[in-house]
């Protein structure tokens, strides 16, 4: 089984989600060739994660239509029978186009290993799982960020330069607006998240949420009404109509646990709910719970984390 992994990079280094895609393919038993676009330091980390070779496209490409062209050409060159990419913002724009170019069935956001031509993924916003069969000879798969680990024991990969006709750019990037000035990990990539809802009463009370997040090295999130009322920025809104996240630890304070909220967070590995109401639905979805006032519990929890050393 030959797999081509599209590995997005930043400052010459593969992203974590990209390395997860490489390790995923390796775990599925494939020989993995990575394709990386733009500046690259050494093998960008792809070898350690499980790739034996990196096809390096030195041109900086921002139009995913162009990226899809070179990735498809690389898949042909590597004799790959399947292509894997992360299900992040880049992979979501590149992989469907690659699938069309290769005439391959595509399974997005998988959560299980590829067995034969079948692979598992979450559907109905995490409320169910589907076993999906790929009906075509070639396959395209995207991996859910933070669902698979990154192996780190491989040898450095051989880097070969690779060129293919990318055509003309029809999309260009003209600017960037960072969501947080503090440089915290973006929500979809965060391993720990501290989230708060309407129970916090007003934006002026978010200090205790941010302090806990800081003590944990976590990113902050919120429920939809909180972002709708402008207490917190839109990009913090998690749930069915916001961002879906899958951190190792999700702490929710003053959030009732409405089904639409849970849809975005129920794939977290461990959930902690803090709520004054012992009947709050969140306790049914949580692993650990504290029935109590967030205004008292959050500062105490922050102190306990800090004293843990």
């Amino acid at each position: 089984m030959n797999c081509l992994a599209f590995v997005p990079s930043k400052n010459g280094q593969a992203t974590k989600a990209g390395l997860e895609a490489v390790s995923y393919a390796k775990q599925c038993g494939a020989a993995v060739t990575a394709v990386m676009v733009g500046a690259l330091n050494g093998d960008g980390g792809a070898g350690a994660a499980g790739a034996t070779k990196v096809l390096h496209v030195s041109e900086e490409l921002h139009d995913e239509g162009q990226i899809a062209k070179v990735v498809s050409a690389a898949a042909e060159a590597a004799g790959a029978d399947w292509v894997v990419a992360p299900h992040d913002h880049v992979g979501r724009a590149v992989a469907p186009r690659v699938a069309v170019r290769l005439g391959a069935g595509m399974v997005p956001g998988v959560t299980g290993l590829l067995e034969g031509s079948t692979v598992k993924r979450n559907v109905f916003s995490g409320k169910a799982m589907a076993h999906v069969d790929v009906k075509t000879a070639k396959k395209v798969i995207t991996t859910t960020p933070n669902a698979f680990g990154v192996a780190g024991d491989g040898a450095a990969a051989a880097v070969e330069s690779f060129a293919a006709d990318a055509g003309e750019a029809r999309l260009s990037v003209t600017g960037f607006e960072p969501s947080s000035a503090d440089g915290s990990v973006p929500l979809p990539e965060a391993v720990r998240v501290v989230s708060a809802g309407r129970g916090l009463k007003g934006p002026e009370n978010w200090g205790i949420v941010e302090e806990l997040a800081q003590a944990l090295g976590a990113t902050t999130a919120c429920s939809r009404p909180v972002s709708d009322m402008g207490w917190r920025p839109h990009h913090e809104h998690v749930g069915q109509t916001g961002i879906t996240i899958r951190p190792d630890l999700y702490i929710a304070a003053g959030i009732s646990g409405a089904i639409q909220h849970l849809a975005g967070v129920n794939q977290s590995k461990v959930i902690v709910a803090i709520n004054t109401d012992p009947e709050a639905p969140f306790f049914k979805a949580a692993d650990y719970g504290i029935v109590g006032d967030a205004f008292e519990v959050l500062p105490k929890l922050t102190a306990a984390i800090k004293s843990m050393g």
Partner: protein
Amino acid sequence: MTMKFLVCISKAPDTTSRIAFTEGDTQFDANGVQFIVNPYDEWYALVRALELKEQHGGTVTTITVGQADCDPVIRKALAIGADDAIRVDANPTDAMQVAGLIAEQAKAGGYDVVLCGKETIDHNGSVVGGMLAEMLDASFISLATSLDLEGGKAQAKREASGGLERVEATLPVVVSSAKGMAEQRIPNMRGIMAARTKPLNVVTPGGATEGTGVSKFELPPAKGDCKLISADTPEELVRLLREEAKVL
């Protein structure tokens, strides 16, 4: 510059639906389920298309791949303000098939801007838009949080790692729409009355190939009981997170 907009509308189970399966766990159990317009398609894609039409002039057509049971959600889209609707009379089973059937109609119609939702809340694929762009040989803006048309180009912001990227793309363009692009519009009585007589054109599907199929659904294992910790001993929670859950 008048514009032709095409908005991809899918039907989805209401967000509070109980999820269950029938026929040996191969089919979604639609019994008692209320269907709605997929929220991303309605709140963001459709409403932004209407706003841009109001600004630039033009027409907003919706397209749905689905059977007659989709008609109520299509009428809702017409009530919100779309001019007319196309329904490709096929049972949607796979992104490649859906994109192929939409692409066929889109090519015939010659649209400047095709909008779809970021994802459907039942399949959660986030795939149809990108496939459609490739099939139409169009530019594609994924996960857009704003969209404007200026100087014959699409200007947008889109979700990127750690913030929003500003991008510019040539027309024709396919846009996948995420939160921020527009505010939900509630149809008024006049809209609902007008929707009854707006054209809903049912077309027979051409040939589109399926890339995948679902062989079985499964419900997640029941969550174990929530362990309650006293509000007076948060250090106990820290200990459990560290030693039992091993996440610290």
